[in-house]
Each structure stands twice: as structure tokens, then as C-alpha cells.
């Protein structure tokens, strides 16, 4: 089985959303700023529900926010 990892574009999407802060995004989806930071850094994989909430905040489909890529 090919090893895959979850990556995301949250940092870029926050930048494009008027430099939304991690705290603001956290408040919008119901997690702490540190949890948003951990998700951005790939240290924590969010639940499906939180992933959808993040996508909803940015008005993007889920696969534009999160990608499931093959590890190089």
C-alpha cells in the first residue's frame, strides 16, 4: 500500500481571506488557535466534521483545502 499523508492549504487560504488569524479561524470552527496551528503544520489530522467546517469558512470544497498526497 502506498504511504500517503494529509496536507492542507489553510495557511494560504487564511492569507487570501484578509490575513485571517489562526485564532479567528479557530473561533469560527470551535477549536483553539493552537489546534489550528497543529492542523496547518500537519501535526494533527482534524476530524471530518472540522475539515468540512474549515472548508465552509473559506467557501471552498473540501479537496481544495485538504489533499491526500503520496509521500515522496
Amino acid at each position, binding site marked *: 500500500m502506498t504511504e500517503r499523508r494529509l496536507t492542507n492549504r489553510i495557511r494560504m487560504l487564511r492569507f487570501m481571506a484578509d490575513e485571517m488569524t489562526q485564532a479567528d479561524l479557530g473561533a469560527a470552527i470551535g477549536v483553539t488557535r493552537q*489546534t489550528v496551528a497543529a492542523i496547518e503544520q*500537519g501535526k*494533527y489530522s*482534524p476530524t471530518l466534521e472540522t475539515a468540512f467546517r474549515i472548508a465552509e469558512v473559506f467557501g471552498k470544497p473540501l479537496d481544495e483545502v485538504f489533499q491526500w498526497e503520496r509521500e515522496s
Partner: protein
Amino acid sequence: MVARERFAWIDLIGMILAYGFFFIAFLQSERTPLTLVILFAIATAIRLAIIAGGLLTLSAEGRAELWGKPDERDRAVTRRSGPAAYYVLLLAMIAIVFMAFYCDGITVATAGLAGLVAADIVRSAATVAGYRWGWRD
């Protein structure tokens, strides 16, 4: 650093200091049941004092999230640190059952406390590791 992570560090350091003192002091004493109980009570009081100090410090810093509802990452970290401690406790209890046939009561009691402390330290260390380095499923 999230308040819950800081508290996990305080808990871990408090445990190592308090029960480190307990085992060093007890192994250097006459090893009577009364000494065991008194030293363990002192160590537990030290641990509680460190935890209380940590909570007061975090509250004074306005870290209100410590008292709030844990978010999903907090719950995931807690959920994952439990099983590690469980296996340590399980191994310790198996060892103690066998020790009961060959060792005196005070040694078995000390080993039992060591098992409990080791399991709690592993739980706390796993919590810290979960916050610091994360886990990838």
C-alpha cells in the same frame, strides 16, 4: 503553548519530583510500612502543591481555556495517552502478582506504588508528547 499542554508539563514535572523524592527517601530509609505511608503522603502532598501552584499560575495568566470545554485535539490527546499507561500498569500488576510469591510485603507494596507512578508518568508524558509532536493516524 496551549494551557492544557502547559498543565500537562506541570503535572509531569510535579510527578517526577514528588515521587522521585519518595522513592529515593524510602530506599534510603529503614523501609517500614509506616515510613512508606508517611513518605508517600508527603510525596502526594508535594505533587498536589505543584499542581495547585500550576493551576494558580495559569489562572493568573488569564489562561481561561484550561477551564473550558476541551476541543477535539485535547480529546484526541487524552484518548491516546490512556492506552500507553494502561499497558504499563498491566505489566506492573503482572510483575507484582509474581513478586507476591517471592518477596516480602513491603517490597510488593513498594513495587505496586512504583507501577502506579510509572503508569501515571507514562500517561502524562504521552499527553505532553501528543501536544508537542502530534500524532498522525
